Each structure stands twice: as C-alpha cells, then as structure tokens.
C-alpha cells in the first residue's frame, strides 16, 4: 500500500499550497477558492483512508462531505458577491 501513502502525501502537498494561498490571497474570493481546494484534498484523503484502513464507514463521509462542500461554496459565493469584503 505504498502508493496510497504517496498519494496521501501528494494531497497533503496540495492542502499546504491551498493554505499558503489562504494566507497570501489578496481578495476574499482568492481565499474562498483556496479553501475549496483544501476541502477537495481532504475529501480525497478520506477516500484513500478507506483503502488504508478497510473502514467502509468513510464512504458515507465522502458522500456527505462532497454535498456539503458544494453547499458551502455556493453560500460563500453569495456572501462574497454581495460586496461585503
């Protein structure tokens, strides 16, 4: 299962780059995009955790997190688009 470890490391790298953009980001929208990417890498890591630990319960976590991530992004977009920066 060394490939799963490598994949988790890659997702961690993507998460770190997203966090760096959250810290740097000149606008709020930049930070929203970067947190979106961070959430995606976390969902990917949870999916790989199913392979690593054989815990099938995490499949439900993946499904719910995907839907909640979309709702959170839409809410953030509505909030930012109103001009409150």
């Amino acid at each position, binding site marked *: 299962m060394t*490939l*799963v470890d490598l*994949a988790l490391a*890659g*997702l961690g*790298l*993507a*998460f*770190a*780059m*997203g966090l*760096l*953009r959250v810290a740097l980001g*000149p*606008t*709020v*929208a*930049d930070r*929203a*995009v*970067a947190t*979106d*990417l961070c959430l*995606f*890498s976390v*969902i*990917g890591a949870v*999916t*790989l955790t*199913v*392979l690593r630990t054989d815990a*099938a319960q995490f*499949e*439900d976590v*993946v*499904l719910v997190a*995907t*839907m909640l*991530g*979309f709702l959170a*992004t*839409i809410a*953030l*977009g*509505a*909030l*930012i*688009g*109103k*001009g409150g*920066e």
Partner: protein
Amino acid sequence: MSDVVGNAFIVLGVLLIVIAGVAVLRLPDVLARANAAAKASGLGLASIFLGAAIHIGTTDAYVKLGLAIVIQFVSAPVAGHVLGRAAYRSSPEETSATLTHDDLAGELPPRGTPPASGTAHR
C-alpha cells in the same frame, strides 16, 4: 488487473489535485485560479473516487462513490462559476490581469453601488 486500473485512476486524480494546488499558488489573478481549481479538482476528485471504488470492489462502494462522482461532476462547474462571478462582483479591479473580454461590463453596477430594486442580478 483491477488493482492496476484503480492505481492508475488514483495517481491521475492526485496528480490533477497537486497541479490544481500549484495553479492556485502561481496563477496571476483570481479568475484564473478559480478556473484551474474548479476544472482540475473536479475531475481529480472524481478520478480518485473511481480508483478507490475499483480497489474496494464491493457494491456498496460502487454505489456510494459512484453517486459522489455524479454529484462532483454536476457541482464542480457550478461552484467554479459562482466563485468566479463572486470574485468579479466583489473586486473587479483584481480580475483585470487575465480578463481580456469583459462580457459583464455593462451588466453589473460598479462596485459599491447598491443593486437597483427589482433586478435579477444579486
């Protein structure tokens, strides 16, 4: 055989998400970053889901992760569009680096003015 296919999908997905991370870090303005993140992470995450489902191999995994793939494919473009539009509306001057043709120039009120009552643009 199925292990090789699953591994290939997982590697493809992780590579796409890492590329999206580099893009979010290095592209010049917020529209380019939102575009790259939406495209790459939408397909990348779906690819990881497919690879994991092939690896696990149970019907439960195929149903749940397949549903997650469908949701991801439907929601990722919408989320990217919403974020790009929100970025344009909140700070148009920050989106000028890559924006060569501005379709929304006459459509939206300039920043700071409250939206006129009764308009559909919010």
